[in-house]
């Protein structure tokens, strides 16, 4: 028991020393993951309103010249 506690104490101490650089890295990674998920969610929502057959739609969109 005593050995375990001191082991925990030692890893906590180690984590405390490494905290600044690694925390920042994981912070950025987390934010990037959040942004990516955000973008994916947006694209999914846009996908929902987009016409089904892109090639057919684009080919079929023809206008007369105006001013």
């Amino acid at each position, binding site marked *: 028991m005593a050995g375990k506690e001191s082991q925990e104490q030692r890893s906590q101490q180690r984590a405390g020393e490494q905290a600044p650089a690694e925390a920042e890295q994981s912070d950025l990674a987390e934010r990037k993951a959040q942004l990516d998920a955000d973008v994916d969610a947006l694209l999914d929502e*846009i996908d929902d309103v987009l016409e089904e057959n892109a090639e057919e739609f684009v080919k079929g*969109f023809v206008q007369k010249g*105006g001013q």
Partner: protein
Amino acid sequence: MSVRRVMGIETEYGVSHPGHPHANPIRMSGLVVGAHARRAERVGGLARRWDYDEETPLRDARGFDASRAEADPTQLTDDSSTANVVLTNGARLYVDHAHPEYSSPEVTRPRDAVLWDRAGMVISAQAARDAAGLPGGHEIVLYKNNTDGKGASYGTHENYLMDRRTPFSAIVAALTPFLVTRQVFTGAGRVGRGQDGRTPGFQLSSRADFLEVEVGLETTLKRPIINTRDEPHADPALWRRLHVIVGDANLSETATLLKMGTTAAVLTLVERGLIGESLMVRRPVAEIHAVSHDPTLQHRIELRGGRRLTAVQLQMEFLTAAARLPEAGSDQATKEILAEWERVLVALETDPLSLAEDLDWVAKYALMQQYRRRDGLQWDSPRLHLIDLQYADVDPGRGVALQLEAKGRLRRLTDPSDVERAVHTPPHDTRAWFRGECMRRYPAEVAAAGWDSVVFDLPGRHALQRVPTLDPLRGTRAHVGALLDASPSAEELLAILKG
């Protein structure tokens, strides 16, 4: 009052019947305009004929009238045989060269230009839905854009009232470099380069490739950077109406605000002789294409004196000059435009993608890049072309720009309740007030209306009664509000006006 002048926006909408590329666009456009007319009738404002009496589409600002016999048929815009209605908000909704067109009422402030332009989108989307609901009707989709990506282009034109004393050559000298470069914030973005869009790539402006000459009268072919049409719809001794045809159709309200406000400011600089020829570029047509084709914004434009500046740097020169105007410190509307102009130019210089919520081309570009990354698409992918087109669909349930706006990803400036009011009510500070209010109050007696007149057909009178509205700044609510309130009928109104 430097960004405040009489102005307006005319938008030609793309029109299609999904799945039917050969559907007749003139017929569809007529159905859309007709559907709005019927809706207007139901709420009491009647649609009436446009008064073409004072229109002079072949008058050229360079001092001559082009020959009617030699004109291309598309230049004869004074033909009354096509559907067109005057709205209670003072706007005009009509069929123009196979497109439904909304011509906004005259406003004096950039923010009002945005508001009545937005009202036009709401009106158009509603009219398309109404037309689809008619017996035998079919789905009609409207696009606030400028090209089908296959070689056809249609315009989003701006109009600015200017002091007639300003020589046209001064306008050309100052405005050309401004129009060559303002696309860095007004550009709607376009997938594909070249008029037929066949060269893969992205560009800032959907209109740039269709500009072929520096100065000219045409609007449907050989399109010029500076259009010389001289049809002021006002006293030609006092006023010029500058007709700008190079603009992109914008879905971003920030882009529209900047487009109108910065251009109005530059015209003030020209009127006061503050801009001269120092910013003239050597080859404007080549440069307007080059700027558009470079989304990295690094291209350096060659000025006549030999200096080379990027488009953003050239815009900075205009901003610097405008910031020295006295109104820059006193007029609220001017202060707002200058602050926004500066904010956007600085961002374009340092981190253009940070403007994804402000500018159409950046919003589109950012979205395209995200799709390219996720789905491994090249610039010639049909899916990207689809997104480009659907970005401009005016139906809120389908249009990508409107969806982005609803999700808070594209900044909205207008309030929905203000837009709803602008659908029915005219701006109060121009003659649009008189025109729109006559439509609302005397629907049965207005026979026709135009920019510079309202024509009444009174029972018991043989001749039509024409009330000229030649001064865009008279006929305002302040000027005629009480008069209209005191005239429950058109007869009473005319008795006072003509008596």
